[in-house]
C-alpha cells in the first residue's frame, strides 16, 4: 500500500463513514492484518467505537477477517482492503451504468446495495419498491415483482453476486452453519486466503423468494407522528425465504463492462461507427465465454458475427468481411484473425487494446503538460525504444538545444529514462552510449499514483472550501429549514421574504461560487477516476498476460 493510496482511502472512509471509521481503517491499511486488541491499543478509542467501525467496514467489504490463522485459539485478524475502499470513487459510475442497462429500477438496486454494503434480495426489493413508489404519481405504486425481476436480471448478468458466506473467514471443518439456506460450500481445509464470492458455486443463483406486494409511499407529514407510523411497515418481520442470503455488487463485472466500453469507443474514434458496432457485437457474444483475465476473446466466426449483428444494421456479408479485414489490418490490432473456418475466425484483443489505451493516456499527459513537441519526443521513444540524443533531434526534427531541454525535463519528471550502454568494458563516458528510453509499464504505475494523489488533493481542497464557508453554509441551511417550516405552516409571503432576506446578496454570491467550486471539484474527481480505471486495468492485465 503506497502512501498515496492510504491517504486517499482515509479521505474516502472519512467522507462516507466518518472520522471514527477512518481512524480504524487507516490504521489497518498502514499496519496490515491486526487483531482487535491491537487496534484498540493503537487507536486509543473506546471498544464500542472500534467494534462498530469494524462492523461497518466488514459490512461494506472494506475489511476482511480471518480467525484462527495462527492456529486454534488465536485471535481474529482484520485486514482492510485498499482496492475495495478505492472503489467508492467509482460508485456514481456503477449506479449510472445500472441505470443505462436496467433503468431506474436497476439504478436504485445498485445504489441501495452500495450504500448498505450487502443486503438480502427481499429487503432490497422492498426498499427499492418504496423509493420508486415515492416518485410515482399519487395512487400509483411499484409492484415487488417488477423489482424482483430487475434484481434477477442483474444477478443473471453477474452484476450482483452473493456475498462470500462468512465475511472472509476461513472455514473450519465440520462447522457448516446449521441454519444456512445455501448449500454448504466445498469443505476445504482452512485456508488463509479469504474465499472470493466466485469460489461458491451458487454465487449467481437467485433464491426462491416469496415476495408479494407493492412499494409503500411514505406519507409526507408536518410533525413526527405520521413519519413514525410510516416507518412501521418496514419494521415488520416478514419472512421471504431468503434469510441469510446476502447480495453485494460485483465490481469486477462492472469493470469488464467499462473495459468493453472503452474499447468500443476507441474503435469508433479510430475507425468508424460501424466498426465499433461490430466489435461491440463480438464482445457481447463473448461475455459469458471469456474469462475476465483473458488476453482475447474466444474465436468467433464471421458467420456467427454476421448473425449476431443488431437488427438495425443492414450490412451485407461481404461488407462485414471488409470491416473485419480492416479491423485486423489496423495497426492498433483491436481485432485479430485466428483461423479460416466459418468464413474466418476473429478475436478481440483485449490486452492489446488496454495497452494501446494506456499508451494513449500517457501520451495525453505528456502532451497537455509539456506540449506537442515533448509529446513528439515521448511518442518517438515509445516507438523506437532506445535512442541517442542526436537521433532524437533528427527524428523529431527539433533543434539540438530545445531537444536537450525537453529531454532533461522529461527525465527529471521520470517520464523518460536513461540507459548507459558501454561500448568498452571500462565504462568511459566518451565510449558509452547514452540511450533514452520509455518504459510504459513503470510510467503507468507512476501516473496511477499521481492520480491517487490528485484525487486526494481535490478532496482536501473541497473540504477546505466547505470548512472555510462553514458558518455561511450553516446559516444558509438554517434559513432553508425555517423557510420550509414557515411554508408548511402557511406563513404569509412577507414573512417568507423577510426570512429569505436574511441572506445578504454578497453572501448569496459567495454561496453560489462555493456551489460551483464544489461541483467542479466533484466532477473532476469522477473524471480522474476514468484515468485511474484505464491505468489500473492495463497494469492488472500485464500481471496476467502470457507475455
Amino acid at each position: 500500500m503506497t502512501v498515496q493510496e492510504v491517504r486517499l482511502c482515509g479521505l474516502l472512509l472519512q467522507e462516507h463513514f466518518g472520522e471514527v471509521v477512518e481512524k480504524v481503517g487507516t490504521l489497518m491499511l498502514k499496519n496490515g492484518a491486526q487483531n482487535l486488541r491491537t487496534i484498540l491499543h493503537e487507536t486509543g478509542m473506546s471498544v464500542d467505537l472500534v467494534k462498530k467501525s469494524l462492523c461497518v467496514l466488514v459490512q461494506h467489504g472494506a475489511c476482511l477477517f480471518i480467525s484462527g490463522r495462527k492456529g486454534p485459539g488465536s485471535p481474529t485478524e482484520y485486514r482492510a482492503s485498499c482496492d475495495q475502499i478505492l472503489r467508492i470513487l467509482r460508485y456514481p459510475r456503477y449506479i449510472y451504468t445500472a441505470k443505462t442497462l436496467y433503468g431506474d429500477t436497476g439504478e436504485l438496486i445498485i445504489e441501495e446495495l452500495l450504500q448498505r454494503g450487502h443486503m438480502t434480495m427481499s429487503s432490497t426489493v422492498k426498499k427499492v419498491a418504496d423509493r420508486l413508489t415515492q416518485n410515482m404519481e399519487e395512487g400509483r405504486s411499484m409492484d415487488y415483482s417488477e423489482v424482483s425481476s430487475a434484481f434477477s436480471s442483474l444477478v443473471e448478468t453477474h452484476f450482483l453476486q452473493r456475498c462470500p458466506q462468512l465475511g472472509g473467514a476461513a472455514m473450519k471443518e465440520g462447522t457448516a452453519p446449521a441454519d444456512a439456506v445455501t448449500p454448504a460450500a466445498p469443505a476445504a481445509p482452512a485456508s488463509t486466503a479469504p474465499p472470493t464470492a466466485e469460489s461458491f458455486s451458487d454465487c449467481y443463483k437467485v433464491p426462491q423468494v416469496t415476495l408479494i406486494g407493492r412499494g409503500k409511499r411514505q406519507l409526507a407529514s408536518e410533525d413526527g407522528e405520521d413519519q413514525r407510523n410510516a416507518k412501521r411497515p418496514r419494521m415488520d418481520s416478514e419472512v421471504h425465504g431468503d434469510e441469510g442470503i446476502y447480495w453485494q455488487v460485483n465490481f469486477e463485472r462492472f469493470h469488464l463492462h467499462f473495459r468493453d466500453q472503452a474499447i468500443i469507443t476507441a474503435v469508433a474514434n479510430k475507425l468508424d461507427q460501424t466498426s465499433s458496432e461490430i466489435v461491440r457485437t463480438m464482445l457481447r457474444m463473448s461475455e459469458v465465454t471469456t474469462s475476465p483475465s483473458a488476453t482475447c476473446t474466444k474465436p468467433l466466426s464471421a458467420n456467427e458475427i454476421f448473425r449476431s449483428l443488431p437488427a438495425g444494421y443492414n450490412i451485407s456479408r461481404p461488407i462485414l468481411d471488409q470491416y473485419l479485414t480492416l479491423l485486423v489490418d489496423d495497426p492498433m490490432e483491436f481485432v485479430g484473425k485466428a483461423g479460416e473456418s466459418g468464413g474466418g475466425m476473429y478475436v478481440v484483443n483485449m490486452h492489446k487494446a488496454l495497452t494501446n489505451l494506456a499508451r494513449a493516456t500517457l501520451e495525453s499527459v505528456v502532451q497537455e503538460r509539456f506540449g506537442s513537441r515533448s509529446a513528439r519526443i515521448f511518442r518517438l521513444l515509445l516507438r523506437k525504444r532506445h535512442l541517442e540524443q542526436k537521433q532524437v533531434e533528427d527524428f523529431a526534427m527539433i533543434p539540438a538545444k530545445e531537444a536537450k531541454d525537453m529531454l532533461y525535463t522529461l527525465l527529471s519528471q521520470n517520464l523518460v529514462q536513461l540507459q548507459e550502454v558501454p561500448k568498452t568494458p571500462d565504462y568511459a563516458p566518451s565510449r558509452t552510449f547514452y540511450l533514452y528510453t520509455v518504459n510504459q509499464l513503470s510510467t503507468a504505475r507512476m501516473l496511477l499514483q499521481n492520480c491517487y494523489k490528485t484525487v486526494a488533493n481535490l478532496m482536501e481542497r473541497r473540504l477546505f472550501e466547505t470548512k472555510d464557508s462553514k458558518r455561511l453554509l450553516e446559516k444558509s441551511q438554517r434559513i432553508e429549514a425555517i423557510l420550509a417550516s414557515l411554508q408548511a405552516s402557511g406563513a404569509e409571503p412577507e414573512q417568507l421574504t423577510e426570512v429569505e432576506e436574511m441572506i445578504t446578496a454578497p453572501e448569496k454570491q459567495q454561496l453560489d461560487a462555493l456551489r460551483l467550486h464544489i461541483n467542479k471539484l466533484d466532477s473532476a474527481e469522477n473524471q480522474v477516476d476514468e484515468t485511474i480505471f484505464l491505468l489500473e486495468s492495463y497494469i492488472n492485465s500485464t500481471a496476467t498476460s502470457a507475455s
Partner: protein
Amino acid sequence: MAEVKVKKETNVSEAAEVESRIKELCQQFPQGITDQVIQNDMPHLEPQQRAMAINKLLSLGQLDLLRNSSGLLYRLKDTQSVSKMKGSDNQEKLVYQIIEDAGNKGIWSRDIRFKSNLPLTEINKILKNLESKKLIKAVKSVAASKKKVYMLYNLQPDRSVTGGAWYSDQDFESEFVEVLNQQCFKFLQSKAEAARDSKQSPMVQRNSSFATSHEVWKYICELGISKVDLSMDDIETILNTLIYDGKVEMTVIAAKEGTVGSVDGQMKLYRGVNAIIQPTGLVKTPCGLCPVFDDCHEGGEISPSSCIYMTEWLDF
C-alpha cells in the same frame, strides 16, 4: 636546318590555330574535353603539337587541367576569373585552384594550408583578397559551428555543408519545418475526409485515404512554399514527425518496379488518423499539469488548500 626552321615557323602559326581550336572545343564542351576529342577534331595534329598547345594554354591560365576516371580533361578557365586572376601572383592562383578543386563541398582554411604548404598568415591574406574580389565565398558549415568552408563564389553549397533543406545559414528553420508539417497533415486529412465522404465500400474508402510519399511531395512542391528544392526523402522525414505526433499512420506496400514513387520495389503510404481517446481525466485538473506536484502536501507551503492553480482553475 632550314627544314627545321620552316617547320618551327609553321608550327608557331599552326600552334596558335591549334590553341584557339582547342579553346573553341572547350567552349563547345564546357564540361571538359579529352585528348581524344582534340585528336578527333584535328586528326592530322601530332601528339607533340597537341601537348605543346595544351601546355601553353595551361601556363597562360586559359585552360584547366582536370583528371577523371578515364584520364585527363581540359576545360576552359572562367574568363572572368581569368581576368581577375591576372593580377594575382602564383600563390593566389594556387589557393584558388585548391578551393576550386573542393567543388561545392568547400574546404577548411586549415586544409588549404596543408595542401598549399603556405604559412597561415599568407593564406589568410590571400583568402581575404579572393573574397573581396568575389571569387570565393565563405559558408558556415552546419557540422561545426565555428568553422567555415571556402568555395567558389557562384557555387550552390552541398547539403552536407548547409544541413540540407532544414538549415539556412546554419540556423535550423523550425518555422519552416512546422509549416511543412502542417501542410502535409492538411493534405492527408482532406484526403481522408474525401474518402469518408465518398461513401464507397470500407475497403475502397480506406485505400483512397492513403497517399504515397510521392503524392505528398508533389503537392508540397506545387504549393511553392519552399525556397529550396525538397526531395522525397525530405518529405518523408516530415511525414515521420507527423507519425510521432500521433496524427499519421504509415504502411509499406510492395510496388512494381517503375511505379511512380516506388523505391526498391516498395512504396510508403501515409494517411491521417484520429486519436483513440479524448484527453485523459488527469489533465483536466491543475494537479495533472502542476510543476510543483511533488512538493505538495496538506499542511505544507504548497498544499491543496493554499494552491493558487486550484484557485485560478476554480474561478475560471
